[in-house]
């Protein structure tokens, strides 16, 4: 048995609320669109040199962002390639086209959502909230150096058609 690192890595999920008045063909007073993180991305225990993937279908470990409001919103993700230490050591991360999904409600199926592209999402209060789901892969090194590793996930919101 090789090194065993216990790593439960949680990509902090995505804070915040993105913007107001984002709606197509509706009054400017329409309800703001919000994106609220509800669950982080947890890689759990990592073995040195063994990639660890969180599948988007893994309800316990995937990241989730709840969208609420009315109208359209365009979401894109600026996803880190690695967590870095000041000395330059890395814990690489990878996000793929099939690492994202959207869930309209608990009884509907997941719809694939590519986190590498801009995603246009329509929100309808009558249909409840929309959950954005995100998985990913971490690549711990065989001899992962000690240090402080940081990374940033940026969620960019824009109003469609501007």
């Amino acid at each position: 048995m090789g090194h065993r690192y216990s790593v439960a890595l949680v990509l902090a999920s995505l804070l915040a609320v993105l913007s107001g008045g984002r709606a197509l063909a509706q009054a400017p007073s329409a309800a703001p669109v919000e994106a609220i993180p509800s669950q982080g991305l947890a890689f759990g225990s990592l073995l040195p040199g063994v990639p660890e993937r969180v599948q988007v279908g893994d309800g316990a470990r995937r990241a989730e962002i709840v969208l609420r409001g009315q109208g359209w919103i365009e979401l894109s993700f600026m996803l880190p390639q690695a967590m870095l230490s000041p000395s330059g050591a890395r814990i690489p991360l990878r996000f793929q086209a099939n690492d994202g999904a959207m869930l309209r409600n608990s009884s509907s199926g997941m719809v694939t959502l590519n986190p590498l592209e801009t995603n246009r999402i329509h929100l309808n209060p009558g249909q409840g909230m929309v959950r954005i789901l995100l998985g990913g892969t971490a690549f711990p090194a065989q001899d992962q150096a000690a240090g402080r590793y940081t990374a940033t996930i940026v969620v960019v919101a824009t109003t469609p058609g501007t």
Partner: protein
Amino acid sequence: MSGFRLPRPNLRRISLFVALLCLGLATRAAAVTVSPSALFIDSRSQTGTLILFNGGTRPEEVEVTFAFGYPISDANGTVNVELRDTAPAGEPSIVPWMRAFPRRMVLQPGQRQVLRVLVQPPATLPEGEYWGRVLVRSRGGQPPIEQTSGDVRVQLNVETVIATAVMFRKGTMTTGLGVTAASAEMKDDQVEVTFDVARQGVAAYLGRVRAQLVGPDGRVAGEVEDALAVYRTLRRRFVFALPAGALRTGYTVRYTFDTERPDLPATGPVKAPPVTGTLPVR
């Protein structure tokens, strides 16, 4: 959160556990909103305002920066706004002359803040429309996310950026839209409609596209409507799904492009005559 001893004593002991970072797990998380959703500034006033509001339950640290970017599309009609610190050569960027007051702030829960955006280009700037984006970056409001265990520490910063379009206008603005190519194709049980459009005039075309799929019996079998921003050229693609058993021939697509955008400030979009047309579905 816990670490544990590694099985071999000569091995580096690294255990790191970052607890679920718990943003918004039990309570509502940070919630900064920005309005309006686009900013139109003329060369006489040289200023515009955005309203920032923290509707969350924690203070929000906010930073304002600028970038250049506008919607572009790929061969599939997928639209993307690529943000750049500096604009490519030849692009009408207003970014070098943009300033914001304040640039940094902490918004308390429930606090509203006026953000003033000032654009001061040289007086010799030629007439035309110039583009930029205000980026409102939020990074506060979250509980501590750095965890230490053994000799490895992990910190994951999460930021939200709201990118608001800015149009700076000098002189008389005109805009329009030309459909340079359009097609409607029957593919299995759906109709794919593709529009290639190009902006005319000097200002970005901020409008909408509406399309209807008309069946052989003259009835509307499907409708789409979407916002549209054409800064130079754009490809948009829409799909109409046909119900099982529906006829597969004799359809047409009616479309209209216009500049009706009630979601934007009334003085924002430059008006242009509607562009309409009909496509046979092949």
